[in-house]
């Protein structure tokens, strides 16, 4: 419970700043208040993303098993290329100080280490191998018609909730 990273940009009403700093993404907010329909553009990106997940079979339990058994290169290829493309893109954004389409400077925040990344990471890894899904594919599997996965999703939401409930008592 030692990392308190308060980004000055974040207008925070919650005094438990760690709540946000521990989180992977919540610290990087746009400061603009947009009407809700501006979010539709994210839904459009999401559609393309969901199609990619299904067509590259990333949502398949078998592809994840192949990965963890070192019996196919497929998933390593997907993640590896994604990281390289993402890293080059971020270098370009930083180098040329690119702005968002609204003219805001793009902010990238550094993450701080805490032991939860190891313990939580291991637990998530167990769940990934059992269900064949990380959170993204969980949603996509349901969309692809594997309706029983709704149970997995509800249980994942419950898991997140229980984490929130016991968080203060866990080593971080």
């Amino acid at each position, binding site marked *: 419970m030692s990392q308190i990273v308060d980004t000055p940009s974040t207008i925070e009403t919650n005094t438990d700043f760690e709540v946000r700093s521990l989180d*992977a993404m919540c610290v*990087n907010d746009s400061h603009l208040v947009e009407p809700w329909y501006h979010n539709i553009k994210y839904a459009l990106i*999401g559609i393309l993303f969901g199609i990619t997940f299904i*067509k590259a079979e990333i949502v398949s339990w078998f592809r994840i098993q*192949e990965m963890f058994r070192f019996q196919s290169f497929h998933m390593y290829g997907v993640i590896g290329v994604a990281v390289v493309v993402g890293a080059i893109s971020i270098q370009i954004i930083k180098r040329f100080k690119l702005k968002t389409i609204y003219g805001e400077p793009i902010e990238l925040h550094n993450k701080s280490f805490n032991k939860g990344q190891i313990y939580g990471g291991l637990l*998530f890894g167990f769940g990934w191998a059992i269900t064949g899904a990380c*959170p993204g594919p969980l949603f996509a599997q349901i969309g692809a018609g594997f309706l029983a996965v709704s149970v997995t999703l509800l249980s994942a939401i419950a898991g*997140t909730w229980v984490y929130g409930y016991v968080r203060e008592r866990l080593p971080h």
Partner: protein
Amino acid sequence: MLQFLSQPWHWSVAGVLIGLTVPTLLLLGNRVFGISSNLRHICAACIPANIPFFKYDWKKEAWNLFFIGGAILGAVLAANFLKDPAPFQVAAATQRDLQALGVQDFSAMMPADLFGVDQIFTIKGLIFMVFGGFLIGFGTRYGGGCTSGHAISGLSNLQLPSLIATISFMAGGFLMTHFGLPLLFKLF
């Protein structure tokens, strides 16, 4: 064209498209790609129960819920209109290993004998859906992210904590696959 798109996509195509999600979300509005946060936003929106971890303005993160809503819709579209007529392929070695564990169905992306609707109220459902799902939700939040937030966004931005998290969840996956699953498959 549709026929071409209906074949399984090569890993490099998927890798480029998923990688480009990172700058696209940044350029569209300073959003960081990370999906597991949605599980938290759903908790914050539906069952905050006065827990500090869920007391924040989740509406500010609604973009991510739109993103994942789009992903569900994209999956519906791909599964219905870009369906590959060829039989689903599983690596021969993997099929052999899984058959030895007791998996019987290799005809689709998810084995029906583990993830079929009729398995929900069985011991298999309890293990593969309820227990597995719980670990995903608890573990991703405890670890501060999942494959998208840590492995892709975090590594793209050269974050050491994300590398540690990625190594941890890969290690968890190897341990579960090689040591945990053989035990779990004995439970039914």
